[in-house]
């Protein structure tokens, strides 16, 4: 595999790998490199068919290091379809040409892209006969881009502008977050817990008055209720606007084992490369992605986002909470020790009909 780095682009070639799980594994290792930060990532894939959940996971993994998945090079039509739906530039040049040739479009430098964008913006101006002369006014630019979208002529341009902004914004906040985040959050745990419990109150019915909330929450009722974690086949899943909104949360990237008693809370997505041991708690406003074994408590969408998900290479969470839903690991699944292998099938938990359901992310 090769990693070509120019100023702003970073190419990761995983063309030789033919399973989604391994791609995710390789990628998580590779993204550890400093060079991959604050870049537009071009991902070269081979014949692998990736589904939405998988590509979304890869995307959030990359977002986690303040980079953007800007383009995907794939021979699979399935992957291509999914990528396009997520607004990622797709090229399958390698299918036609030899792989040595770097495809022209996604590898442009930032300046080139900017130039191209500006040029094309002006074109649209003409087309729309917009009387406004001042191209440099941001607002106008933005609205024009919106229009572009409507016209469906240049869907990728907007993505690119966003990238530049996003990368800048994020690199600031990330500096401070980074490694100290864990300690910081553990110290803040008091407040965090408060938040969590507030959230939990919602489980028991937020529109009821306090006393009746407690009435409803008497453990017998709650604990005896459904055991939400099951493995069933993945139904077709529509990609909605809210999903895309979810992607715009900032992402915290943590590479360490989260141990018993540790609390990670973040008002955004959390990506953890490592295992989350029993007794830990992960709370995120957005998605939680664990590239390892998730055995503690995970609360995604702790701000109420029902679309939030929890993903893990191995889902063993003692409790899963998404927004206001709660589920616990079935008693029958009392595994003392899970062998660490490279052949896990990633799993994803999300809300289906007000219940948390765990899906295997199958190839």
């Amino acid at each position: 595999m090769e990693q070509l780095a120019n100023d702003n682009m970073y190419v990761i070639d995983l063309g030789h790998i033919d399973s989604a799980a391994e791609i995710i594994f390789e990628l998580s290792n590779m993204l550890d490199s400093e060079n991959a930060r604050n870049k537009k990532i071009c991902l070269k894939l081979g014949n692998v068919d990736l589904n939405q959940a998988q590509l979304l996971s890869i995307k959030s993994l990359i977002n986690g290091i303040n980079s953007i998945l800007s383009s995907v090079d794939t021979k699979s039509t399935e992957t291509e379809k999914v990528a396009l739906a997520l607004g990622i530039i797709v090229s399958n040049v390698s299918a036609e040409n030899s792989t040595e040739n770097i495809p022209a479009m996604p590898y442009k430098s930032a300046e080139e892209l900017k130039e191209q964008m500006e040029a094309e913006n002006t074109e649209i101006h003409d087309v729309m006969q917009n009387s406004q002369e001042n191209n440099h006014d941001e607002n106008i630019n933005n609205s024009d881009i919106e229009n572009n979208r409507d016209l469906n002529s240049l869907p990728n341009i907007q993505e690119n502008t966003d990238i530049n902004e996003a990368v800048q914004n994020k690199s600031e906040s990330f500096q401070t977050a980074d490694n100290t985040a864990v300690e910081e959050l553990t110290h803040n745990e008091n407040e965090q817990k408060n938040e969590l419990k507030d959230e939990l109150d919602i489980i028991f019915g937020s529109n009821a008055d306090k006393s009746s909330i407690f009435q409803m929450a008497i453990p017998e009722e709650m604990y005896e209720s459904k055991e939400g974690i099951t493995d069933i086949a993945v139904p077709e899943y529509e990609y909605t606007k809210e999903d895309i909104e979810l992607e715009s949360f900032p992402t915290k990237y943590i590479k360490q084992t989260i141990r018993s008693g540790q609390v990670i809370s973040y008002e955004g997505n959390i990506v953890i490369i490592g295992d989350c041991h029993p007794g830990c708690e992960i709370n995120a406003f957005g998605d939680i992605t664990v590239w390892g074994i998730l055995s503690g408590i995970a609360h995604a969408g702790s701000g109420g986002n029902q679309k939030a998900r929890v993903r893990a290479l191995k889902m063993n969470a003692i409790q899963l909470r998404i927004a206001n839903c709660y589920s616990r690991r079935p008693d029958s699944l009392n595994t003392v020790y899970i062998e660490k292998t490279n052949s896990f099938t990633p799993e994803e938990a999300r809300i289906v009909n007000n219940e948390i359901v765990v899906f295997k992310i199958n190839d």
Partner: protein
Amino acid sequence: MAGRVIVITSGKGGVGKTTTSANIGTALAKSGHSVVLVDTDIGLRNLDLLLGLENRIVYTLVDVVEERCKLKQALVKDKKNPNLCLLAAAQTRDKSSVNAEQLKKITDKLKKEYDFILVDCPAGIEQGFQTAIAGASEAIVVTTPEMSAVRDADRIIGLLEAAEGIESYKLLINRVRPNMIKSNDMMSVEDVENILSCGKIGVIPEDTGIITSTNRGEPIVNNEKSLAGRAYLNVARRINGEDVPFLDIDEPKDIVGKLKKFLSGLKKQGKEQ
């Protein structure tokens, strides 16, 4: 009706406080009493694991103290025994989250509604210990027949005698191995009693079944065949005021007896798998 608050303590770590709490609690509940187990080992909780209730915990002792939930909400009902419930410790906090006064308030409330409140104490003699004993009027001091554990038990008994609320305390001698005692490699139960000049409420043999039962999240008293399980059932009866003779926990002496025991052990294991 006022329930009894009993603290299970030891001084030395790892001698079997949590195992004892889970088993006595389950045994008392099996005999029809209402029981609350309170885990005060904040940050190092284990009691939920031994009972197989970890996946049910939403609120903890700390949440009750910090008034994020009502006491009733934090009581997790046992899977099998409706008479038994657990007030779990928070795993993500430390001992300073609850003080003696706060715990006493909770146990005082609980004893109005439940027959027994068993408090699983953390190891050590620091704040965690002082907190755990605050609401209790009785104590069970767990020790093993080892010099170091006995020394620490002695220290604890001294502290219990000085404590205001504790009216009585009894010894529970755990992990006893009769064969080692016979070969003079282990202190006898009487030795321990004499050194500590304190009466005993139970003698529990060393039993590998305890490890399996811990891993499975099911107290050993549910297994009537186990010697340790029966010993714990007897402790519960003694707590209830019954006069129960101490079990003969002797291991078979001769080779044939040993072999028989070994084989039956194997069989049991085979069945369990």
